[in-house]
């Protein structure tokens, strides 16, 4: 698999080398683009645009999940895995013309950590030494981030963390210029200034955002396009028709479900549709602190009761049934694990063994936007088949999230996760553990809606994350496989499906297939597409 991706990458590079720059494209979205502040933006509309306007110390090889230094020229990790030294690339300029220095790196990370920024990414960097003191106001700076010279930054962690380099590749760590933040204040998100391949040209709120090539971008030859326009307020169906007429190049919201079958089966579209897996798992949580879900047999019975094939059919086959927590694309995915088979009779027997031969009544929460109420109703019917009568509560996502984080009987016994914007932040197995299956998330207001907290696994997870050296990687992934295997045995979740990404683009748009389904950039990697 890895070799294949690498070969594809080499092919891409040689292709890219011959590629000329120029041209522009149009991308459509139904919803508005909320903000382009990298410390704040956390929607799938702005996530990828921010990646093209800002840069972090680390990044991924285009179209893959392989980490590479980016604004950093190189880095080194200390023996104990706690200290990272980043050597910065020289001559990197911000859109305002100023050269980026190590001070900007420190400033940007501290800005994300600063409580006044109210960044949803703050939690990713708490592992840095002195971060908590800084947040609490006990220190004026983060002691663990040291500027050694204008081109060298040293970051010290409280404990070794194998995913730290991934954290330096997510948007929340991207470098911003202090003077622009001070100039625009809270409106920085509307006046973004970064080091990225594209810079802001024009923004008509609620209608259109245009970004243009940053001529001084440090990666020579990139980006290919001169300009990208994002049109918002475009219904996906309209976007599709306009793409067929040649007015639109990328469908930001994907192919509309009703047209999917026709479009996908049409020979003429074969060249225009790229598809591949996504770093996503749709799952059903069972609150292990609430009876009868405190009984592992009940949870296993539910795992056997759900007809995942039918659910996949309901969403037109745009996913594959899941049997474990991690999606197949994620390192640490266990190919040899087969999960719980769909077995209604077996589920009934298990339920009877647990003392619920006559079933029981419970409540299932779900987000109220299509297709989630439909998926929840399908789950509801499957539960009814083994005697569990689940009352549905389909509500706004904020209400569901609140119920999920509420302790005790007032909380949610079951939640269908769809529509709650859960796509992995970075391609490392620990991203599915700490926030949504670890003990830290199983608190009031947390995101571990199963309230699953296993001290034993918690220790193993910490052990795995302490394996930071390259030669430990295999052992680390094996440990994570083991952890997720035990989680599946405990069955706090029913993994339902992994979404497949289908990206449709216009015929004039070129780029490697991987670029159109880049696991990190959704919908596409804007820096690497070009006009043929």
């Amino acid at each position: 698999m890895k070799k294949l991706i690498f070969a594809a990458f080499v092919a891409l590079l040689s292709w890219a080398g011959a590629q000329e720059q120029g041209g522009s494209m149009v991308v459509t979205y139904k919803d508005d683009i909320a903000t382009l502040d990298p410390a704040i933006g956390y929607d799938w509309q702005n996530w990828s645009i921010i990646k093209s306007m800002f840069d972090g110390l680390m990044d991924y090889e285009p179209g893959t999940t392989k980490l590479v230094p980016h604004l950093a020229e190189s880095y080194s990790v200390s023996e104990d895995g706690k200290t990272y030294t980043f050597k910065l690339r020289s001559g990197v300029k911000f859109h305002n013309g100023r050269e980026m220095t190590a001070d900007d790196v420190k400033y940007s990370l501290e800005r994300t950590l600063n409580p006044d920024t109210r960044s949803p990414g703050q939690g990713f960097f708490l592992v840095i030494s002195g971060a908590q003191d800084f947040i609490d106001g006990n220190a004026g700076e983060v002691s663990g981030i040291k500027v050694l010279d204008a081109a060298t930054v040293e970051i010290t962690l409280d404990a070794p963390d194998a995913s730290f380099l991934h954290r330096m590749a997510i948007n929340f760590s991207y470098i911003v210029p202090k003077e622009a933040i001070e100039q625009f204040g809270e409106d920085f998100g509307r006046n973004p200034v970064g080091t990225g391949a594209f810079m802001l040209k024009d923004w008509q709120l609620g209608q259109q955002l245009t970004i243009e090539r940053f001529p001084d971008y440090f990666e020579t030859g990139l980006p290919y396009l001169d300009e990208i326009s994002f049109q918002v307020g475009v219904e996906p169906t309209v976007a599709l028709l306009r793409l067929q007429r040649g007015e639109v190049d990328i469908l930001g919201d994907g192919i509309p479900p009703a047209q999917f079958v026709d479009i996908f089966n049409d020979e003429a579209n074969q060249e225009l549709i790229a598809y591949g897996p996504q770093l996503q798992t749709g799952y059903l949580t069972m609150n292990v602190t609430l009876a009868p879900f405190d009984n592992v047999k009940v949870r296993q019975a539910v795992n056997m009761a759900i007809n995942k094939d039918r659910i996949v059919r309901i969403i037109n086959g745009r996913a594959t049934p899941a049997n474990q927590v991690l999606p197949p694309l994620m390192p640490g995915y266990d190919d040899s694990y087969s999960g719980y088979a769909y077995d209604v009779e077996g589920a009934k027997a298990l339920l009877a063994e647990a003392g619920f031969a006559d079933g029981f009544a419970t409540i299932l929460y779900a987000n109220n936007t299509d297709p989630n109420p439909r998926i929840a109703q399908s789950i509801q019917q499957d539960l009814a088949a083994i005697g569990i009568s689940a009352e549905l509560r389909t509500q706004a996502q904020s209400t569901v999230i609140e119920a999920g984080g509420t302790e005790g009987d007032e909380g949610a016994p079951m939640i269908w996760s769809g529509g709650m914007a859960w796509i992995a932040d970075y391609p490392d197995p620990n991203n599915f553990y700490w926030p949504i299956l670890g003990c830290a998330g199983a608190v009031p207001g947390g995101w571990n809606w199963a309230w699953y907290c296993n001290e034993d696994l918690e220790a193993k997870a910490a052990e795995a994350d302490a394996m930071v050296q390259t030669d430990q990687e295999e052992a680390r992934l094996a440990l994570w496989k083991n952890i997720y295997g035990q989680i599946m045995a405990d069955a706090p979740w029913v993994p339902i499906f992994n979404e497949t990404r289908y990206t449709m683009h216009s015929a004039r748009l070129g780029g490697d297939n991987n670029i159109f389904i880049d696991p990190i950039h959704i919908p596409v990697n804007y820096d690497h597409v070009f006009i043929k």
Partner: protein
Amino acid sequence: MTLIASTPSRPSTWRSLRRNPAAMFGLIVVLLVILIALFAPLLAPKNPAEQFFEGLTLEGSPLSPNQDFWLGTDLLGRDLLSRLIYGARISLLVGLIANGAALLIGTLLGSLAGYFGGALAKIIMRFTDIMMAFPALLLAIALSAILRPSLWIVAMVIALVNWVQVARVVYAQTLSLAESEFVTAANALGAGNGRIMFRHLFPHLLPTMLVYGTLGISTTVLLEATLSFLGVGVQPPTPSWGGIINESQSYFLTAPWLVFFPGSAILLTAVSFNLLGDGLREALDPKLRR
């Protein structure tokens, strides 16, 4: 459009209603919908909640009307006709509860304000001003977000939005009644406020309540459908006409019947209650019969 009461004599009301073909059409459809709702289990060809395996194509698309599923299936493979038939229950039930509550609140507050006047009337009528200035739909959406949506809650939310109209009409009418001779006379004879309100006022308000009770159901049916369409109405899998359209929305270009049939059911029911209500209004108020 207030009704100045003359105690109605029923036979004449009925006679004038019968001469009005539009109102009769409304009445017949309303009765039909009531019958469908009452006998839904007998009429529905299939279980409205069952997601049939053969109700979807292999690619997961709904079926168009065919021999097995007369009006086709929805996106979960359920029988649309059966869901529409059961949906009549939800529409009517919410209509009756919501409108009944709105009528009760509206009549009570309107007549209190009209009869006692003074500061009480000022407060109540100012409050109706505020309610009138509220974007009704946003209010209903916000309320359904706070409260757990169930049939009763949806009905109460609608009632909270809809009572204002009734209160204003009843207020105006009570105001003129309070000055009328028979109330003044009763007052002079020493009848208490309660007795006057119940014995003399309410009977004269009845025709108005009847008219608004009928017209209001139309508004209620529409509002329930709208809330369900926005996903904040009656909870699935309860079949609600608006809810069916909500679930089918993304498919309307390839499966327009999923919008057309429930949409027609909503329209037909709402029109019928309106026609009947309007007929009643004309029948009860001879002045309108030009």
